[in-house]
């Protein structure tokens, strides 16, 4: 059975990386739980730590993402979309992107949403939308944006809360093995990096103790729509992300984890599709029929 053909019938819109891991849980509990929860995180984080540069920029990102989803869904799918996922994408952009300007929030949110409709293979979007949008901005607008995400303070309390909450969510979503593999790989490779660079080992561990990594680990690399299907495959991909990140780090790339996921994630999906197509019985290797109007 070919995964891509079944995927092609679903609308391309999906939750943003921050909360894709939520989908199985939320579907049982309440479809509106993820957006409510991320809104809660946003407000608590902002009121306690001031995580946002301004409300206006976050609102701008949310409105841009939702408007873009609405427009593209009507235009390509001729149906009204569920705007929960684009709302979450907008919030993700608002949290992860840092820029004194307004336009990067609009462009990043729209790029994230549009990438789901444009960059597709066999009916499946390869890039994690927010990861794509943010990486595109970092590649193309490094003079205007950054994601040095240290907004939630550097204190132990915030770190413990996020780790505990994230672990609970991810455990229930049955994707904890991805996080565990990535963390173990990162820690192992931090020893290698420290040995190569001669820097203190704790300086190599330091990034993973920050809030940006916590979001990255729990909500980005676990994205069900843009990770491979098998459990072992997911662990291998998590390790490869950490490995690619190590090379980016040795090249002194500030956004190493985002770039690693940007390159490894789609490559892993492409490999999985190729393997699946090879495994399929010869008689079933027929051209994929795209019922989804966004597909060519």
């Amino acid at each position, binding site marked *: 059975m070919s995964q891509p053909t079944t995927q092609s019938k679903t609308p391309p819109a999906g939750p943003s990386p921050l909360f894709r891991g939520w989908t199985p849980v939320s579907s049982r509990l309440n479809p509106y739980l993820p957006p409510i929860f991320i809104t809660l995180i946003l407000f608590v984080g902002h009121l306690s730590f001031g995580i946002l540069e*301004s409300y206006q920029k976050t609102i701008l990102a949310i409105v841009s993402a939702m408007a873009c989803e609405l427009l593209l869904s009507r235009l390509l799918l001729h149906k009204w979309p569920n705007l929960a996922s684009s709302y979450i994408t907008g919030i993700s952009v608002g949290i992860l992107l840092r820029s004194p300007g307004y336009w990067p929030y609009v462009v990043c949110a729209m790029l994230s949403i549009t990438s789901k409709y444009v960059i597709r293979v066999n009916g499946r979007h390869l890039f994690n939308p927010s990861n794509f949008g943010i990486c595109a901005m970092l590649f193309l607008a490094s003079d205007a944006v950054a994601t040095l995400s240290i907004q939630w303070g550097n204190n132990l309390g915030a770190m413990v809360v996020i780790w505990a909450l994230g672990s609970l969510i991810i455990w229930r979503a049955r994707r904890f093995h991805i996080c565990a593999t990535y963390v173990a790989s990162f820690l192992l490779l931090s020893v290698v990096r420290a040995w190569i660079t001669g820097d203190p080992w704790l300086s190599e561990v330091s990034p993973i103790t920050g809030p940006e990594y916590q979001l990255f680990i729990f909500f980005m690399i676990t994205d069900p729509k843009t990770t491979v299907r098998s459990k072992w495959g997911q662990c291998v991909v998590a390790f490869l992300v950490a490995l690619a990140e190590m090379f980016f780090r040795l090249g002194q790339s500030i956004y190493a984890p985002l770039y690693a996921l940007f390159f490894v994630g789609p490559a892993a999906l492409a490999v999985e599709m190729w393997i699946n197509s090879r495994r399929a019985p010869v008689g079933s290797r027929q051209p994929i029929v795209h019922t989804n109007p966004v597909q060519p």
Partner: protein
Amino acid sequence: MRQIPWARIAVSIFFLGLLATPAVMRWRLAQRTLAAHSTLDRQAALARHGFYLEEASHAAGIDFVHQAPTLDASLNPIMPEVASMGASVSIVDFDRDGWPDIYVTNSAEGSKNHLYRNMHDGTFKDVAEELGVADVNQRGTGVSMGAVWGDYDNDGYEDLFLIKWGRPELFHNDRGHGFTRVSEQAELPPWINANTAVWFDYDGDGLLDLFVGGYYPEDVDLWHLKNTRMMPDSFEYAKNGGRKYLFHNLGNGKFEEVSAKIGIDSRRWALASSAADLRGTGHPDLFVANDYGVSELYLNDGKRFHEAGQQTGVGFAPKSGMNVAFGDILNDGHFAVYVSNISENGALIQGNNLWVPKEGAPANTVLFENLARDMGVELGGWSFGAQFGDLNNDGTLDLYLTNGYVSLDRTRSYWYDFTKIAGGNSSIIGDARDWPAMDGRSLSGYQQKHVWLNDGAGRFVDVAQAVGVTDTYDGRAVAMADLWNRGVLDVIVANQRGPLLLYRNTVAPGSHWIEFDLRGSSSNRSAIGAQVELAWNDQKQIQEVSGGSGFSAQNDRRLHFGLGKNVQLKSAVIRWPSGKVQRIDSLVPDKLYTVEEPR
């Protein structure tokens, strides 16, 4: 026949358009900043921008090069970063001869500070040694970080408070003939690791009080560390810095520390502070820019301070505050506040803040909005000191910003390692041992400075290169003064591990000016806190005498107003700290007015 997927093609074009947007925005920005990157000769600059700055320190007899401190050996791997401050400049007419003098600090143990006496002939002569304010960085006493001048005993001569990482010092000015160290008599604490201080009369009793903002905690001796856990515990939320002091002047040569008693209680990492009456209450408010955190604005009700950073809008987004300068940039009788931060392409874009008061705020309150981006003064690299001043005498305040953090190897950057550690948990970032070694790498080094010209219509245009500001030293402090009584503002810049730069200003003929030298009687003698509202043609502008502003700097106490061409002066209204209001009519331009407070 196959249907052409127009919708899909349109979406794909839209997607490509989004990807191209950053390039378009960059091109637009490049067009706007073209003037900043093109150099002009003197005549062309005078014709186009109305002024030209010429570096003239050597010709003026000044060949000062700042020496950085060398701290405890355990900090060696990151020494260039932790020992990255100490260059400062303050302007004072210490001998009351009517010509501004210059005091600059040095920061290596055993190095000497310099007091450059204005010789009235275009040159300066260092008299610090003979007057007793040179040898102030002796081993075991810490080193200088800055200096602010104020006449604390109202004898008519400006006294010197020396800001140090170490033993703070107060020097009494003996009528311009020498200085006497009175730190013990004044009952100053034995050790403060401070980078900022400001003289102001917070309670209106006619005596100058002194605010000192700690950076490193006061129990840390940076030359003899007990351990290496002396770094900030967060890059944006650090609260483990030095304490704050407010020394209330008792009038008998002694000061009483009253900060906690009157509402100032913070351990953020203060780097800059200044005081001005921001709400028209007659009481000076205190603005503190903090590194590794939010700014603080202490509103003064005459007896107590109330921290209102969040309430007024300036204390919400944590950045790396390194400057506080006030200026009536819109000529509307209200002060805007310029706070410098860090911007580095591809790494960290904090953006500087230009806090402009919103219209329509209720009486005795103020609400600020950040218009730095809209007005074009947002991106200034790793920004440090900045000052407002009318450099071309066109009637609007311009902005001079210096920048650059650590300039070492041009080809290798420390930024990656810096961000690696900055986002980490407090237990890691707070220990200097965990910081990767700099190994001779630069951190936002060799940066071009910014001279933003106010167009009077809400925009600033960077003309630095065009008007002769081409240095790329690691700038720290900026001060402005009419050094040679010519009716123009010259600019003095102190650079870390670099030379003191003296930019001599030439303004195109035809633009007028007026200056005020205020002297208090029932108010403090320095007239710090006195505010002049000058009205001419259809404009008005306020300026206030300051006891310290910018970063580790103090401008000349004399207030300089550019007036533009075809001037019709109306009046100057002086609001003295005592509450007296004095109106002066029949003013003529191109003249320095010395005004004594009416008794």
